[in-house]
């Protein structure tokens, strides 16, 4: 009896741990989906893929549970008990632990400097004439440019690349504060993360703002502002800056990221 008993117990371990991990992942993905947190990690257009994947995990879990309870139904795994050590499952447990133990789920301003602010808009200056400008005629007719979730990327590109065309116009926008080293006392950048595929490829986009005592707001404070676009010289180049006429400190929005091209 002795060897058989050991066999059974160690075999159960492998399939049992796998069942626990699979269950953990199903619960994690389902929870993120139900509480609408998935857009904080991936572009909403990929959510359907995640839904498919947790549905696919269910039959795998069922098989693993059956294998845990009825070891004889598995011909080959029974021999594999010797290396079903906990060690090879550590990475999965670390992910689950991190996911459930760290409650915050939104990128903060710390990452702006390592991602590089506005790198995209300066990226295209050498080919600026060929640039498609779908929003230029629309913005040209507006008295007040309203920057929303939907037009954020294009609006930032337009304003940062062609400040001379928009100087004097009113603008309303939201974003979080990021203080670039080297700006004066009354200047900050108002920034949002733009997410293409998943949050790992997010890039911070924003525009410079000017206002009295604005630097008292620490990095990451969300502001909703109204202001007037003006042209300034920054780093020896023409740049846009918003002269703030009114501002309001707001709670971080539920949808902090911008998803372009949706």
């Amino acid at each position, binding site marked *: 009896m002795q060897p058989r008993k050991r066999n059974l117990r160690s075999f159960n371990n492998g399939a049992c741990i796998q069942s626990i991990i699979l269950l953990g992942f199903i619960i994690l993905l389902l929870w993120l989906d139900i509480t609408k947190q998935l857009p904080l990690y991936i572009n909403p257009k990929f959510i359907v893929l995640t839904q498919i994947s947790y549905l696919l995990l269910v039959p795998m879990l069922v098989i693993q549970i059956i294998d845990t309870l009825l070891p004889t139904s598995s011909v*080959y795994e029974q021999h594999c008990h010797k290396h079903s050590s906990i060690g090879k499952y550590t990475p999965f447990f670390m992910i689950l632990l991190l996911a459930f133990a*760290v409650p915050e789920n939104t990128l903060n301003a710390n990452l702006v400097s390592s991602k590089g602010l506005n790198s995209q808009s300066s990226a295209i200056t050498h080919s600026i004439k060929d640039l498609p400008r779908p929003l230029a005629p629309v913005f040209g007719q507006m008295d007040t440019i309203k920057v929303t979730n939907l037009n954020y990327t294009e609006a930032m590109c337009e304003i940062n690349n062609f400040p001379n065309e928009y100087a004097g116009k009113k603008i309303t926008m939201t974003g979080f504060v990021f203080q670039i080293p080297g700006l004066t006392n009354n200047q900050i950048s108002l920034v949002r993360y733009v997410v293409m595929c998943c949050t790992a490829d997010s890039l911070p986009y924003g525009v410079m703002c000017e206002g009295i005592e604005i630097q008292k707001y620490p990095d990451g404070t969300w502001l909703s502002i109204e202001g007037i676009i003006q042209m300034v010289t920054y780093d020896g180049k023409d740049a846009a800056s918003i002269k703030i006429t009114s501002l309001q400190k707001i709670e971080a929005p539920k949808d902090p990221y911008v998803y372009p091209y949706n």
Partner: protein
Amino acid sequence: MEDALATIAAAVWTDNWNHVINFKVILLSIVIESFPFLLMSVIVSALLNNFVSENTIRNMIPQSNIRSIFMACFLGILFPVCDCGMVPIVRRLILKGVPLPAAIAFMLAAPIVNPVVSAATAFAFQNNIHVVLLRLGTAFGVALCTGLLLNGFTKGRQLKSPSQIHGHSHGCCQHTLNSHHPGYSPLHRWINTLRDACHEFFEMGKYLVIGAMLGSLSQIAIPREMLLTLGQDSSLSIGVMMVFAFFISVCSAADAFIAASFSSSFTLGSLVAFMVFGPMIDLKNILMLLHTFRTKFVCCLTLIIIMLCSSAAYLINHL
């Protein structure tokens, strides 16, 4: 004094905690994003194992090795897959009798030479067709040359034997490497498919997760300024961008946007090298490769790809 210390400690704590949050968000986003692709890949691999016989596959691939390599480079157009999940499928194809050079060429080309990635690249570079063509062309060239080189210089499957994978030699677990069992009932086959998929999911998922962890760490730790100072040198920039691509391990559909964000400060060749090398070899898939293929083979393959990518990038910079 104590107050001041407490304030400093609190500030350091908040700062580090913010880094932990960013690490968690980036890590989970990579895992969630690549999860469907890994799952799809292990399921396709398991289906191949249980429902397709070696003969069917042998009849489908062209007789001549050169022609099969050529064909493999274009298969991505039909199967737009992400690089996250290529290794299990490729291993299964090799086990099913696809010649190694063709399978490797497929693995290298498919994540780049496909419609989804072309569209994403065109978006990222604001419809600059020149960059898209350079990327696809270079990827195709590298995959083709690698396939041809492997065809000339390697023999056999180069897969690790099951005993090497598990570090012992009593030959268990061979089941997963076995071919399908023609006598089984359909229900049995489906159950076995799920079991194989599950087994491979845990085998490969581990490396994906570890790679994603290292990738997110380097996203937080590598300061952009350091990269930017090296960007204009025509040869150095290529090396820097390839190392960067290796470490950050983003999806092939998304890396074009990262590359575009560097386009003001980096040479065109280095950007192409970034977008071609990254999907072929990066931290998360080299771990899976090392687990699947012989170490010596993975080293050779990596070296070949590094040489080809960097020389292509060098040519782009100087023509």
